[in-house]
C-alpha cells in the first residue's frame, strides 16, 4: 500500500470521516461532528473505538451521511462511489453469513467494483517490546473466518476486486502489506516480512492492511488520549491519506474564546451553531457568556470569519511589506535534512518560484548553498515568510546551515523572518477561518484551490527517503529510478502559493479593533516592529 512511486494525481474517490467514540463523548455529535462532516465533504462517517457503539447511535441522528458500523452485532453497511468502482463495507464480524459470497457481489447491478475495503475491528495492532515485535492480533483468525472469495490469494487476477482489510484498532493512516503463509489460520501474525516466510515462497499471500482508527498498547507511539477526528481519503490508485482534525475546530468550539464551558452555556441558551452565534450582537454575546465586550467581540468576529470564509484582523498591527515566501520539505518531523526549499519571490501570482532541491543523495550542502547565494541577492529588508516557520521551517533551516554550511549560518540568522500563523494566532492579530492551523485548511477556507493532489508532506518525505536509501545503497552503475521531482516541486509550489494567498488576504482584511470600528485601511505598511 505504500506508494512505490508518487500516487496518481486523480481526484479522490471517497472521503471518510473517522470518529473516535471518545470525541463524541467529549464534544457533541451535533453540531461538532456534523460540522466536520460538512467541512470535509465526507461521504460517510465511521465511528471507531473507544465507545464506538454509543457514538454510532448519536451520529445516526446527527448526520445525513451513511454511518458505517464495525461494532459487534451489526449487519454489514456499505458506501460506494457513484460508479461503483470503490466500495467500503463495514463488517462487524466478517464471516460467510454476514458478507456476500464474493466481493464482486457488493457493487451495484452489473458493476464489479475494482477495489473493496472491508472495515472491521477483528484484528488489532500492538507492539510487544519484550519480543521487539509489532503484531496484528487476530489477523490470522480473521482471515480464516472470512469467505473464501474474500481471502487473499497468491494469484490476483484483474477480474476480481482488490480487497483491502481495514481495522478500527490499527492506527489511522497506517498501511502495510503482510506476507502470510496461505494457510495462516490459527496463528498470530507478526507484521512485516521479517517475521513471515521469505517473500515469493510458493505458499505465500499478500494481505493489504489499512488502519482506520486508534490502536492502544502502542507505548509512547500513539496518543491514546487524542480525540482527533480523522479525515481519510481513498484514491483510485489505492493510495490513502489521513489528516487528523481537532474536534475543537468544529461546531461552537471552533470559535475563538469558546471552550467547553462557554459552548455549554451557549447551548443552554439555544445557540447551537456558529451561524447563530455570528448573528448575535456583541452585547447579547457578552450578556449570555457573562463576559466583557472585548471577549464578546472576538467571539462574534471569529464566528463571522468561520461562516464567511474570511479573515478578520483584530489589531492595528500590520504585516511587513515585500515578503519572500518559503516552504521546506524534509524527511520527517524530527528531520535530518531539508531536501527541498521552495521559494516564491513576489505575490501569489508571481512567476518567480524557485525550488532549491538536493540533487545528489548524500550531499545536503549544494542546494543549501544555492539557496543562500540566491538569498544574497534579496535585500535584507525583505522578510522571509513561512507558515508555522517559528515552529518548523526556520528551525530546520538554522539546524541545516549550522550542520552543513556553518559559514553561511551567521548570514542566515541575520535574516528577517516572519510567521503569519504565529502573528495571527499567538499574537492575536487576526482571526483565521480554517478548521485547523494547517496551511491548506486556512487557504482552502478562503477559497484557494490546490493545483496538485494526492501528495502531502508525509508522502513527499516517504518518496524522498525511499529514493535516498535506494541510491545510497545501490551498486555502482545500478540505475535508480528517480521520483517524479516535478510533481514534488509542484506540491511545494502549491504550498508557497497558498501561503502567499493567505498573506495577501490578511493584508486586505478589514481591521476590527476593540473600538468596534471597521477600518477599511489595509494592513501593510513599512513598520517592521512586529516581527523578529
Amino acid at each position, binding site marked *: 500500500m505504500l506508494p512505490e512511486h508518487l500516487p496518481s494525481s486523480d481526484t479522490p474517490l471517497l472521503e471518510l470521516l473517522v470518529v473516535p467514540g471518545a470525541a463524541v463523548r467529549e464534544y457533541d455529535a451535533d453540531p461538532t461532528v456534523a460540522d466536520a462532516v460538512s467541512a470535509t465533504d465526507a461521504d460517510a462517517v465511521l465511528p471507531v473505538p473507544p465507545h464506538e457503539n454509543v457514538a454510532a447511535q448519536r451520529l445516526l441522528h446527527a448526520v445525513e451521511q451513511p454511518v458505517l458500523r464495525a461494532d459487534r452485532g451489526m449487519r454489514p453497511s456499505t458506501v460506494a462511489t457513484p460508479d461503483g468502482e470503490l466500495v467500503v463495507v463495514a463488517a462487524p464480524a466478517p464471516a460467510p453469513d454476514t458478507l456476500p459470497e464474493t466481493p464482486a457481489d457488493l457493487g451495484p447491478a452489473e458493476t464489479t467494483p475494482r477495489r473493496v475495503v472491508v472495515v472491521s475491528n477483528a484484528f488489532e495492532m500492538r507492539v510487544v*517490546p519484550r519480543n521487539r515485535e509489532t503484531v496484528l492480533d487476530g489477523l490470522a483468525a480473521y482471515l480464516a473466518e472470512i469467505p473464501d472469495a474474500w481471502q487473499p490469494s497468491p494469484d490476483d487476477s484483474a477480474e476480481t476486486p482488490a480487497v483491502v482489510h481495514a481495522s478500527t484498532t490499527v492506527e489511522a493512516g497506517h498501511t502495510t502489506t503482510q506476507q502470510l503463509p496461505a494457510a495462516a489460520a490459527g496463528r498470530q501474525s507478526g507484521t512485516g516480512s521479517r517475521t513471515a516466510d521469505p517473500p515469493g515462497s510458493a505458499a505465500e499471500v499478500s494481505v493489504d492492511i489499512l488502519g482506520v482508527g486508534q490502536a492502544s498498547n502502542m507505548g*509512547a*507511539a500513539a496518543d491514546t488520549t487524542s480525540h482527533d477526528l480523522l479525515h481519510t481519503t481513498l484514491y483510485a490508485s489505492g493510495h490513502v491519506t489521513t489528516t487528523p482534525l481537532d474536534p475543537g475546530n468544529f461546531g461552537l468550539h471552533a470559535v475563538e474564546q469558546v471552550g467547553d464551558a462557554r459552548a455549554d452555556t451557549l447551548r443552554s441558551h439555544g445557540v447551537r451553531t456558529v451561524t447563530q452565534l455570528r448573528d448575535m450582537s456583541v452585547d447579547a454575546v457578552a450578556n449570555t457568556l457573562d463576559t466583557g465586550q472585548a471577549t464578546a467581540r472576538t467571539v462574534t468576529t471569529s464566528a463571522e470569519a468561520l461562516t464567511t470564509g474570511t479573515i478578520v484582523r483584530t489589531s492595528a498591527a500590520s504585516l511587513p511589506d515585500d515578503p519572500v515566501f518559503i516552504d521546506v520539505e524534509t524527511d520527517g518531523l524530527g528531520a535530518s535534512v531539508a531536501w527541498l526549499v521552495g521559494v516564491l519571490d513576489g505575490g501569489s501570482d508571481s512567476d518567480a518560484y524557485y525550488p532549491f532541491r538536493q540533487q545528489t543523495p548524500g550531499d545536503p550542502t549544494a542546494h543549501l548553498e544555492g539557496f543562500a547565494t540566491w538569498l544574497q541577492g534579496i535585500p535584507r529588508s525583505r522578510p522571509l515568510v513561512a507558515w508555522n516557520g517559528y515552529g518548523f521551517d526556520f528551525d530546520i533551516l538554522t539546524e541545516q546551515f549550522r550542520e552543513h554550511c556553518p559559514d553561511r549560518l551567521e548570514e542566515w540568522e541575520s535574516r528577517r523572518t516572519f510567521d503569519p500563523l504565529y502573528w495571527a494566532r499567538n499574537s492575536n492579530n487576526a482571526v483565521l477561518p480554517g478548521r485547523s492551523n494547517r496551511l491548506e485548511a486556512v487557504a482552502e477556507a478562503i477559497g484557494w484551490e490546490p493545483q496538485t493532489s494526492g501528495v502531502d508532506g508525509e508522502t513527499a*518525505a516517504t518518496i524522498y527517503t525511499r529514493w535516498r*536509501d535506494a541510491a545510497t545503497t545501490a551498486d555502482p552503475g545500478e540505475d535508480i529510478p528517480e521520483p517524479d521531482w516535478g510533481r514534488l516541486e509542484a506540491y511545494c509550489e502549491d504550498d508557497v502559493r497558498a501561503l502567499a494567498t493567505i498573506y495577501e488576504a490578511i493584508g486586505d482584511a478589514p481591521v476590527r479593533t476593540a473600538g468596534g470600528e471597521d477600518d477599511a485601511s489595509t494592513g501593510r505598511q513599512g513598520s517592521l516592529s512586529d516581527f523578529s
Partner: protein
Amino acid sequence: MSDDTIYPTDDTQPGSPPDTHTRSSRPSELLADGGQNTGADTDTTAVPASARQDVLSDDALQRSFPDYQGQIVESRRLPPEPADTVPADDVLRSELAAQMAYDLFTHQAEALRKLETGDNVVTTTSTSSGKTWIYALQAARNHLQDDQATALCLYPMKALSRDQEQELNTKLRDDWGLDLSVGVYDGDTPSDRKRRIRNDCNLLITNPAGLNAYLPRHARDGGWARFYKHLELVVVDEAHEYTGITGTHVAWILRRLRRVAAHYDSRPQFSMTTATIGNPAAHARRLTGLEFGVVEDDGSPRGRRDIVLWEPPVDWDQVADDDTDGQAAPDGDADQLSDFEDARRSTGSEAAKVTAHLGMNDTQTLQFCSARQGTEIAARQIVDAADSHSRSGRVDAEAYHAGLGKRTRRGVENQLKAGQVDAVASTNALELGIDIGSVGATVTSGYPGTRQSFWQQVGRAGRGESDALSVLVGSTDAMDAYILDNPEYLFSGSVENAVVSIDNANVYADHVLAAAADFPLTDDDASFLGGHDRLEGMVEMWQDAGVLESTSSLDSLGGVVYTGDPRPQSRISMYGTRDMEYVVVCRDGDIDHDPVAPERAHRDYHEGALFLHAGQQYEVVDIHRDARIPRIHVETADTGLYTQTLSQKSISNLQPRDHRSLDGGIDLYFGQGTVDVTYNEYVVRTVSTGELVEGPLPTGSPPLTLHTDLLWVSLPADHIDTTLDRLDEPLLEPTDRAGRDPLVPEGEKRYTYGGGIHAAEHGVIQLAPLELLIDNNDIGGLSMPEHPDEAIPGPVWFVHDGIDGGIGFTRSIFDNFETILRRTREHIAGCDCGQRRGCPMCIMSEDCGNQNDPLDRVTGQLIIDDVIAALDSEAGSSDDESTSEPTE
C-alpha cells in the same frame, strides 16, 4: 552512668574522645550543601550541650516523660570526627584558590582531582558534607578555562532546584566573583526567561522529567545548540533518588542527553552525588552508561551524635489469643492484623511525645513522619503532647510537606533556620538537601524503609561539629521489629544497594522512540542506546508499527526518522512502564499526588477505596478510565474505616533465565513470566477493631496482566508430607473465611503447609528492603502447594516485580537471596509475638490479597530451614542467561 549521658545505658564507646569538644576553626560554610554562607556559626539554635544531653537520660525520662516504661531499647554514641582538610591551592588554580577563605575537605579535594584528570566522579559522603562545593568548583574551573563552558545540573525536585539556584549564585557570583549566570529551567519558568537562559546561561538547573521534554527542542529553540556545544559538566544530584522505575527512566534520559551532547561534539563529564549507598560506582554506571571514580572517605567534621531506638510498648494481653498455642482459627471475618493495631501504642503519637519532650527541653527537633501519618496531625499531636507533659511550658510545632504552597514551605524553612519554631513535623521532603540550617535533634516516626534514608534523616540534625541527637520510634511492621531487635543492622555493614535496571523493554522502547524524535537514529547511537542488536530490534519493531520511517535503516544515510504523532516523549510517564497513568483529582480540595500507574491504581484506587495521603484520608468516588487523561476522583473523608483489597492471582508462561539447582530437589529460579491479577473485591473494616463493616464488594477494576520478572523457589512434591512429619505443633484449623475461598488449600494438612509457604513468601518480601533500596509495594508474591507448570513438581513460592516489564527488584532479591532468607529465618523465629499465625511485625502484611490467611510461622520456619540447608550445600549448577548490560 554519668550525668551527662543522654540515655539510660552506659557510654559504650571505648576509646571515644571525651565529650567536650572544641569548636572547629572550620567554618560551617564548607558544609552548606543547601545553605547560604554567612560565615557565622550555624549552631545558633543549639542549646548548651549539658542541657541537651540530659534530655533523654533515664532520670529525666522517669521524672518528666509521661508514663515512661523503658521504651529505649538501644542507644549508641557515635564519636565526633574532626575535619580532614587539604589547602585549597593544592587542588585549585590560584585565582580560584585565592577566593577560598578556607581549606577544602579531603573528599572535596579528591573529587576535584579526579575530575581534573577527566574522570566522572560519584561522591557518596554524608549529608551536609559540602558536596555542592565539588560541582560548583568544577563549574568554576571550567568557566575560568573557557568562559563559554556550560553545565547542566539535575535535581530530583523543583523545590530543590530553586534552593540550589540561590546557593550556586551566592557561591559562584558573590563569593568567587565569577561572571557566569545560573538559571532554573523548568515548568515554572516563564517563556521569555527560558529564552534568556537558553541563550546566555552557563549553569542550567532542571530535573530529569523536564530534560526529557527539552531534549528534542535542541534544534528548535534557539540557544540550546550553544548550550550543548559547550556542555562540559553534567551534575546529577541526589542520585540515590533514582531507583526503581523512575531510575530506569532517568537512566535512558541521561543516555539521550549524552547522545544529544555528542551530536554537538560534546562529551561532558559527570559529577554525581548520592546519599550513602552500597554500590555507588555500579549505580552511577547503570544510570549513565559511563565509568565513575568513587569518593567516599568523608573529610567533613562531625560532632558527637547519639542515636536512640525507641520501642512503643505493646500490650500483648490485648492480642486475641484463644489458647496457649495461639493456633486456633480466629473469628469469622476479623482482620488478622487488627488486634495488633490496638495493642501497640500508635507510633505517631509516641513519636509526637518524644518530639514534645525534646522541645520542652529546648532542643529544636525535626520529626520525620511515616507515609501513614499526616504531618498536620503530627504537629497537633506534638503540641498536645507538650500540654500533657509533666513540665509546664508549651511547644510550637509546624507541619511541612511537598503539598504545601511554596511560600508556606519557605516560611517553615526560615523559621527552622532562625530558631523560631520548636518542632517541625515533616514528610521525607526535608530529607533532601533543602537548607534548614541545623536542628538539635531528629525523631523518625517509623523506620523510613532504608538505612540510606534513615541516615539521611539523622544527618539533618547537627551541622559541622555541633552535637546531635536522633531517635527512631519503631512502628508495627516486620522491618521495624527486625531493626529494634537487631540494632547492629543500623550501625554496621554497608548501606543498601541502589537498584536500577535498564532491562525493562517497555521503557526502553519508548525512549528509543523519544531518541528518534530528538534526532534521527543511526548506528552511531548503539553505544548510547543499549547496544546494536537491542537497538536494531526495537527500531524494526517501531518501523513495523509505522512510527519510524520504514524505508531506511540504522546504517542508511540520514538514519531512521521519527514519523509518528508529535512529541512521543510527552507520552512517557516517569512513574510507570505503560503509556497510561491516572491522575488523582480531589473534588473538594487540592491534592498533591503523583500520577498512579495502573498496577497500583487497580489495587489501591478502585471506586470506594479509602486511602491516606499526607495525613488526610480520601475516598475514591469515581474513576474515568476512558477520559482524555484517565482520572481518579477522590473526596476527603474522615471515616474511622479502611479498605482492604482482595485479589486473585495466577502465574504462567514461566521462562527461566537463571537457575540454581540445590540439594534435596529444591530449585531456585529467576526468569520472566506472566502474572494475571484481578483485584476483584474489597472489604471495609473499622480502624479501631478491624471489624468487618461491609463487603466483599466488587472493585470494578479490570484484570491486569503483567509480563514481568519473577523468582521462584520450587520444592519437591513430597515436601508437604516430609515437612508436616517434622512439625511438633498441631495442624492449623482452617478459618471460616478460608473455607469459602476456593484458592485456599483444603484440609488441615495442606492448609497448614500453605500457611508455612505463604509465611516464607511474606517474610522474604517484607525483609528484602533491609538489603536493597527497593519499595516492597512494587513487589508481589504468590505461594501454592502445587502449580500447573510442568517444570514445577511440587510446592512453590514466587516473588515478582509488580511493574510490567520488571524493574530489577526481583533480580536483585535473587542475587541476594541467601542473605535475605537467613535474615527472614532469624527474624521469624525471634518475633516476640509467639503467635502461630504471626503478627504484623513478622509475617503479616497489610498488602496481602488473601487477608493473611493462611499463615503459619512454625511451618514457615521449617520450609525456610530446608531451603537454607540446600543453599549451604549448593550443587553449584548455574546457567545464567540474564540480560547483561551492554558495555558503553
